[in-house]
């Protein structure tokens, strides 16, 4: 349902993505790892249109993303949810108000647009928001101000907000980087629940795979703007992690691990 085709991107003369291709099927649960600067966030932000590729295309459910047309971009973003490292919530507003903002994309015509621009939501939306808050385990905190919640709770609110969009695809940009290990596990478990119970495709960017190996089936590893591993997490050998993350004094340009990528039919091959 997601198809990334040979995208390239440079910032200030530095090539951040060097012709990356990726295919993700419906309801897959994917982890994306790599060093800072390897291009993970840039690639993911291309999917919901915040970064425009210099070359190549990105398609969601067969529809290529048109970066130049703001209306089409809006339509594409409606069904793509995103959660962030710093949660990106409106701190002064209540939990439920934050979750309701997830419905804004759907309220884009006539009366709906007018009422949501004033801040009025119909009762069904509010009840739906409450259901989602219950789903993420925050049913009793609907009317509390978000700045009173802990980090883990805030991320749950963010997940509820994303679910409010009824997304096909959920992107998670380093969602646990600011959380302690125990809370991180809970959040990843929640994301797994989202993927299994609701069938939503989930792509999660992580800094470290070690502690969370059991949660994921498929891992995509990026290094210096290209995908250097794409496959089952069980096949990922521990010593390859060094190559993915690299050590500071290593001068080696040559990668020591075999490139294993899955082509569009899902069959593994050596590139």
């Amino acid at each position, binding site marked *: 349902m997601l198809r990334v085709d040979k995208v390239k991107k440079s910032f200030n003369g530095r090539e951040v993505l060097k012709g990356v291709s990726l295919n993700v099927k419906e309801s897959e649960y994917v982890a994306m790892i790599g060093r800072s600067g390897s291009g993970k966030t840039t690639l993911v932000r291309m999917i919901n249109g915040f970064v425009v590729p210099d070359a190549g295309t990105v398609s969601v459910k067969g529809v290529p993303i048109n970066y130049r047309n703001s209306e089409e971009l809006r339509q594409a973003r409606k069904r793509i949810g995103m959660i962030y490292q710093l*949660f990106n919530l*409106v701190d002064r507003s209540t939990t439920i108000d934050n979750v309701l903002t997830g419905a804004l994309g759907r309220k884009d015509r006539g009366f709906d*647009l007018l009422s949501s621009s004033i801040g009025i939501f119909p009762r069904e939306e509010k009840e739906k928001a409450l259901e989602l808050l219950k789903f993420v385990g925050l049913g009793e905190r609907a009317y509390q101000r978000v700045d009173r919640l802990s980090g883990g709770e805030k991320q749950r609110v963010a997940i509820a907000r994303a679910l409010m969009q009824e997304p096909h695809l959920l992107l998670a940009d380093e969602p646990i980087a600011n959380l302690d290990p125990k809370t991180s596990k809970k959040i990843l478990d929640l994301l797994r629940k989202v993927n299994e119970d609701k069938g939503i495709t989930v792509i999660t960017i992580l800094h470290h795979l070690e502690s969370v190996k059991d949660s994921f089936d498929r891992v995509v590893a990026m290094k210096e703007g290209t995908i250097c591993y794409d496959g089952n997490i069980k096949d990922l050998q521990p010593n390859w992690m060094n190559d993915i993350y690299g050590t500071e004094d290593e001068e080696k340009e040559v990668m020591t691990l075999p490139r294993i990528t899955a082509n569009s039919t899902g069959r593994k091959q050596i590139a």
Partner: protein
Amino acid sequence: MSEKATTRSIVQLDRGNLKRIRDVGIAIILLVIVVYSFNVSQVDPINLINGFGYTWQLLEKMYPPDTVSLPLYLSLIEDTIAMGVASTILGVIISLPMGFLMARNTAPGTVVYHVTRFLVTFFRTAPSMVWALIFVVSFGIGAVPGILGLTISTIGMLSKFYSEAIESIDPKPVEALNATGGHGLSVIRHAIIPQVTPIFTSYTLYTLDSNIRGAVLMGLVGAGGIGGQLLIQMNRFNYQNVSTILIMIVVLVALINRTSAYLRKGIIEGTIFKDSRRYLDYAIVIIGGVVCVAFLLVTQSDIDWGLFITGWGKTVWMLGKFSTISFTYFDSSIDLMKETIMMAIAGSVIAIIIAIPLGIAMARNLNKNMIVANSLREICNMFRAIPEMVLAIFFVAAVGMGPFAGVIAIALHSAGVLGEFYAGAIENIDSKPVEAIEATGASFAQRIRHAIFPQIWPIVNSNNLYILDRNIRDSTILGMVGAGGIGILLSQTFRMFYLEDAVQIIIVMVVTIAIIDSLSAYIRKRLV
């Protein structure tokens, strides 16, 4: 498969609705007050449309500006600047010790603390023009009453600023010095003063800016400077001279405003008074001070010092007359005070309505068009700098006497202040939730309502209240030039020497302003 929300949350949902009803109720009450204020101040669509026409006619009569009287006006501008500088210097000298006496951590005793606080609040509440009126009666017309009036209000403002700065210092160096046996003045000199010097300087620069603007106004009650000439030329319908004077005032005020803002920004950001060039900066300050004093001595060499001495005698006589109050004009006071408040409300509301789109257009993170954003900023700065009284004089000439002129003057001046403030608030928001909401497919209007608005709402409201509070205070004197409100009653009673009535009017003004001040401070605390 979907679970219904728990009963408790449904109850909370309904409670949320009750809160909404309460908010709507408050909004309706406020709306009624605003409509009433428009009514009292004669603000209606007809007057507004005619107003444009009259303003244009007046502008036509004011073109081209007269150049013959330029030398006279320039010397008056010098006098104005001198008044502003002198009152600032005097004000600083007195406010420095006052600030220490008023600060909780340095006051030498609760009696002193409370007495100085009361005195300073009293100085601050009455507008400087009122003080000037009093001193004009004692010292005659000329620069001296203006300087004294400005000094009194400077003490009111600056002492409070200084004391707040002293109260918010880091206590650790003070404790450390006390522990080594230091005490009193030496602790102040070595632990407190180094911490507060930058912000004291910043406040002082702000006061200089404010006092030069105030000095322009002093002339309107005969206290010297260019203000007086403005009124004279207005009354003689010499509109071309008026426009020369107005242009000079605008240029003066804008220049001082810019320089002061630039210097203050440098101090706060640490580029001025850096350690590395500290001696250079102090040298500049001292030389600047010497230049100011020399300038004063040269331009004010015609001060009649004899009158200065005898004037204090007259002041005592006046204070004697003040001790009796006459309530002859009490009913008029109340009526006109009400008109003043309504005028301020109407003007502030119009200013808010203008300033909202203005602020959005000037916010650099919303409006990528630099040319539009910056030119709007310049226009706002201009209206911000022009004193409301000057605008009031202009609009009284354009649309006639009465509160309508006052409302326009307040609206334009405050729109400049508020527009700048709104733009700043929008630029300072956290952009992360804005991006997150944009990522859900929300439109521009939805983003503003759900990501930007909740972040700035409390501080915008707090500032709106502050502006309303300030406007009520400043509107009390607009009547002196015919723009409605209690000012006219005040100036008339002074001119006719009905000082017992003047006392009553001043008391009505001061008490009303004090009540509104505390009310506004209370509400603002609860908002944020």
